[in-house]
């Protein structure tokens, strides 16, 4: 049973998510702003926090900064209506292990939560597109070649995610196991979070596309 905490400032949305999640998930609490989220996370110690990006009091990034800054190992899955690159890249670099949009179906969300709980990363097609775009524009020389570029395989995996493939379909397409697909995605997540390329943030701010 995965224990989940929902952080969102819209009450209607919180109850909607609660109703949609499958039986394998237990919602241990809800929070509606940064303050109550930080308190509830410390109190319930959930496996996964479903985190809204836009909230009163600093938004999801502030929650990430305060909770992960205090050394907590809680895993975050960002959930937002916004597809703006700066929001997506912002929370991922803030430490979230995945990003999905709110129009995701209940089954897909349950899947994503399970994946994050197991320590893997969850990329929406759009996030995959952003990452491909951001890492493609490599005019400036990279500081750390290992962190600042994607391998051929990672690129292939991301491209398939962007094309709308599920992990299982990707595994079949590339003749690898689902676990290997997950490893590739986690590795991309790590690069996204640790890479120093200042281009990444600049790119995200410059590109205010949906």
């Amino acid at each position, binding site marked *: 049973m995965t224990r989940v905490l929902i952080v969102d400032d819209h009450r209607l949305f919180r109850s909607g998510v609660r109703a949609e999640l499958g039986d394998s998930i237990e919602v241990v609490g809800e929070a509606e702003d940064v303050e109550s989220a930080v308190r509830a996370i410390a109190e319930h110690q959930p496996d996964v926090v479903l985190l809204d990006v836009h909230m009163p009091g600093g938004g999801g990034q502030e929650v990430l900064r305060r909770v992960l800054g205090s050394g907590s190992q809680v895993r975050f899955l960002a959930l937002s209506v916004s597809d703006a690159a700066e929001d997506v890249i912002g929370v991922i670099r803030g430490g979230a292990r995945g990003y999905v949009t709110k129009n995701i179906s209940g089954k897909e969300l349950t899947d994503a939560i399970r994946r994050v709980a197991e320590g893997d990363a969850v990329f929406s097609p*759009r996030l995959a*597109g952003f990452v491909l*775009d951001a890492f*493609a524009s490599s005019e400036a020389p990279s500081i750390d070649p290992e962190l600042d570029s994607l391998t051929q395989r990672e690129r292939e995996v991301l*491209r398939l995610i*962007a*094309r*709308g493939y599920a992990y299982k379909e990707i595994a079949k397409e590339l003749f690898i196991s689902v676990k290997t697909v997950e490893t590739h995605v986690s590795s991309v997540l790590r690069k996204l979070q640790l890479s120093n390329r200042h281009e990444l943030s600049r790119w995200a701010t410059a590109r205010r596309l*949906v």
Partner: protein
Amino acid sequence: MADQKTLAEPGGDAPYRRMTRPMEGRLLGGVAQGLATQLSLDPIVIRLMFVLLSVVVDGVGVVAYAVLWMITPKQPYEGQPPQRDWSQLAAFTAIGVALFAFGWLTGASKGGIGMLPFAVGGIGALILWQQADPERRKSWVSGASRTMRKNRVRTLLGVVLVVVGAAGFLVMQGELAQARPGLLFTAVVVGGLAVIAAPWLAGLWKELQLERRERIRQEERAEVAAMVHDSVLHTLTLIQRVAHDPREVTRLARSQERELRNWLYQPAQDADATIAAGVRRVAAEEEDAHGVPIEVVCVGDLAFDPGGRLAAMLKAARQAMVNAAKYSESPSISVYAEVEGEEVTIFVKDRGKGFDLDAVPADRMGIRESIIGRMERHGGTARMRTEPGEGTEVMLTMKVENE
């Protein structure tokens, strides 16, 4: 009356404060400081005033200082009197000496009592400067220095030109020597006027800026209101009227969502200026027409060529979306467009029922003609992957010359 009394009370025990010479922060005898407290001015202004009076008007400042020193009582101070700030005292002395040297060189100090206007003007300017509130004063200084820095070369050039021009004119007329005192007074008067007018001008400028900002804000608010009214409220009304038809409700909500997103995040751009914008527009149109959500992801971008290869490719992509929306029964469609180097690739994928490619009759124009044939005629390729129950994916590839 009662009001006045309450107002006066916190002021202290005596209705009129007697001037005293404080020990703390004094430079010489504390006269300037005491006077400054009495007149609620900055001690620096008073000190500069004394220096000015001493140098310009035959030592009047020194005499005045001495007289005030004698008639003003010392402020009681317990313990060892604090040290004087010698460095500041030295600075004021230096200013005095510099002023004296300037007067001596220009011959102005010989004027004696005739230089009184100069001193009065200077003191007036100092007091006005002091009267302006500190924040505004700071913003003047920083603002002025910023503009100066920005146009340093131009300002310098201008000043040099004016000075050279004026001097040249006077030399030509042979009147440079006589013009000197007159010029000095002119400078003082202009300086004084500038100082007097500056706060007023600054206030006016500030007001203008405020008004402009307010107007912009109002225009923005009007735009938001128009947007909400014309589209959001309208759509909500429509949704209520077709509440019995879930498909139509979804279509309306999707189309409204897309419109709002475009308005919020998308930079205003020509609909078909680039291939990515073109793909988004086509997907939006087909989504509206068929009521199936189409998710678009674009990587890279390229200028669009109307009537060229990319236009043909876009038409093929549209046909693929139409097919997926009409026949696949998939709940959603994924479109991925990528520009990499000299190659543009568009994928259209659904999770619908799929079909047997070999079983498609030869006269089905949709796939053979509109997609495969069209791509090949323009030098591109179209591949299709489908199986009954596995969904369908159409892959379009086109080479372009990237200039």
